[in-house]
């Protein structure tokens, strides 16, 4: 994949790989952490933890409903239950279990969904989590975190273990460019401005952050100075950073690897409309399911490209 090439970013690890490494390395310091898997631990990358701590990991088979409720039960005995699957199988298949066994009782369950977005590629649309953020954001009291690179994923993994209550961590399969080569201060609910600018703000998360950086470079070459914000937490959303961007740059583009409905774009819009209305544009998968194909080809075909963000920014600037 070519993400980050235009802006000169190094290619790094997939966020799922960074999560897996972080979870394993935190295992000794967090003796209450347990994992519950639906037989895809080698895909979600809980496997290294499970191998290091076999007595604290439970593979309950291909039964996501049961898996999530088992995690709720473990949490109600004081465990920090990390329950993972592909984003679509976790959120979509076990949604009522997440509602009743996790969110409603407010239990300390850490939902982790890998294989989010269309960049999973060849396995096709049945495996793509593109409704997951909307589903997770609909649940009261669930923090929704979408990290963009390995470094911030490692920080996010620790942060979610440190916070009491339910969280959803959204991870990708594809390698992601290094956004934070020098580390980052990660705090749930506090976005990170990774490029300053005053003509337009691009708000994104996950894999789209690298693409937003590429877009910012293209815009800069054309004389438009874009601010780029890594909005790694969708719930609770960073209201202050959004209002500041609206006031200082006067227009906002939101880019995400998700359907248009209910994702980051919706969350940012709600703040903008209520606090400081400015022209907004959106780059996302729209209202459609994608198809099988190579990851870069899919991103190009479904409009998740630097050029798409540039076009959106120009539309916003022109309004």
């Amino acid at each position: 994949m070519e993400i980050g090439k235009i802006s000169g970013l190094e290619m790094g690890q997939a966020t799922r790989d960074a999560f897996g490494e972080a979870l394993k390395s935190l295992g000794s310091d967090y003796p209450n952490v347990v994992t519950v898997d639906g037989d895809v631990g080698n895909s979600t990358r809980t496997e290294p933890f499970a191998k290091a701590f076999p007595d604290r990991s439970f593979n309950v088979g291909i039964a996501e409903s049961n898996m999530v409720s088992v995690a709720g039960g473990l949490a109600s005995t004081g465990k920090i239950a990390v329950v993972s699957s592909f984003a679509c199988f976790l959120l979509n298949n076990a949604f009522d279990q997440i509602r009743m066994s996790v969110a409603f009782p407010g239990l300390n369950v850490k939902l982790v969904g890998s294989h989010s977005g269309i960049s999973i590629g060849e396995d096709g649309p049945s495996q793509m989590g593109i409704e997951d953020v909307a589903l997770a954001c609909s649940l009261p009291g669930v923090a929704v975190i979408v990290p963009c690179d390995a470094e911030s994923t490692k920080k996010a993994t620790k942060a979610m273990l440190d916070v009491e209550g339910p969280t959803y961590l959204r991870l990708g399969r594809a390698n992601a460019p290094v956004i934070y080569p020098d580390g980052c201060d990660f705090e749930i609910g506090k976005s990170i401005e990774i490029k300053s600018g005053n003509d337009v703000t691009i708000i994104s998360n996950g894999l789209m952050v690298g693409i937003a950086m590429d877009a910012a470079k293209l815009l800069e070459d054309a004389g438009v100075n874009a601010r780029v914000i890594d909005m790694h937490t969708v719930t609770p959303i960073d209201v202050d950073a959004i209002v500041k961007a609206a006031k200082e740059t006067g227009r906002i583009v939101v880019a995400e690897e998700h359907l248009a409905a209910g994702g980051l774009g919706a969350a940012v819009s709600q703040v903008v409309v209520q606090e400081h209305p400015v022209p907004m544009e959106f780059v996302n998968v729209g209202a459609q399911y994608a198809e099988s194909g190579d990851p870069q080809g899919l991103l190009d075909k479904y409009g998740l490209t630097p050029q798409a963000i540039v076009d959106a920014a120009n539309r916003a600037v022109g309004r």
Partner: protein
Amino acid sequence: MPVEAIKLSLEELKEKAKVIRRHIINMTTAAGSGHPSSSLSAVEVVTSLYFAGHLRLDPKNPDAADRDRFILSKGHAVPVLYAAMAERGYFSTDELLTLRKLGSPLEGHPNMKRLPGIEASTGSLGQGLSLGIGQALGLRMDSLDSQVYVMIGDGEMGEGQVWEAFATADKYKLGNLTAIIDQNGYQQTGATKDVLDYGDFAEKVATFGWHTQTINGNNMEEVLKALEVASQQKDKPSLIVSRTQKGFGILPVMEEAGDMNFHGKPLSKELAEKALALLT
């Protein structure tokens, strides 16, 4: 105070069951809604768990780590649980009359966030046994000998998740887990055998590696014996198929009303009077 069990005599248990039945009638009639018949079928089992030496608890310290746990997966029958909890001292019996009223933690279905002593928020059927498995695993990891009991409805057995859970409990050989199916034979729209018939639960669940028993669950002596046998199963999970009658204790009143299911509705004041007269 450490957690401890209360052990009443057989006669006292039968009397306690009557008191709990009266609470169920009074609280649902006062609420003007609820599921009294679904609660009444489960009275002998719930009474035995709370008062026949099984659940080791401390109502003054409801979160004690080493307590035993009871999950009412058929959450609509929660009046029986509230009645038992009040009798056990979690809150006053007067509070039972706040059932389903705005501001009361005695909600229409169990809410663990609002009422200490409730071990799981239920009401969306099918999830309680999985929650119980998680608790049983967690307690075993902490080397506690606490027991987990989960009551499931026979209609609830239609939920696929329950069967996922039976297999999982077998995988982890959860000797600290006991499931009870309150097989009262009816669900919302009719007889369970007509809606979705799974046949013999004990036979099926035994093939999942569970210890199983089938009893008359409205017979206190049979319930006591079955719970005792279940507690002796240390290396595998245990199932009690508790064959009961919906509305047990006030069956003549349901006959008079012409509805032996009487699902999800309270007794009128007049019928409640008649029911209470049967429970003296």
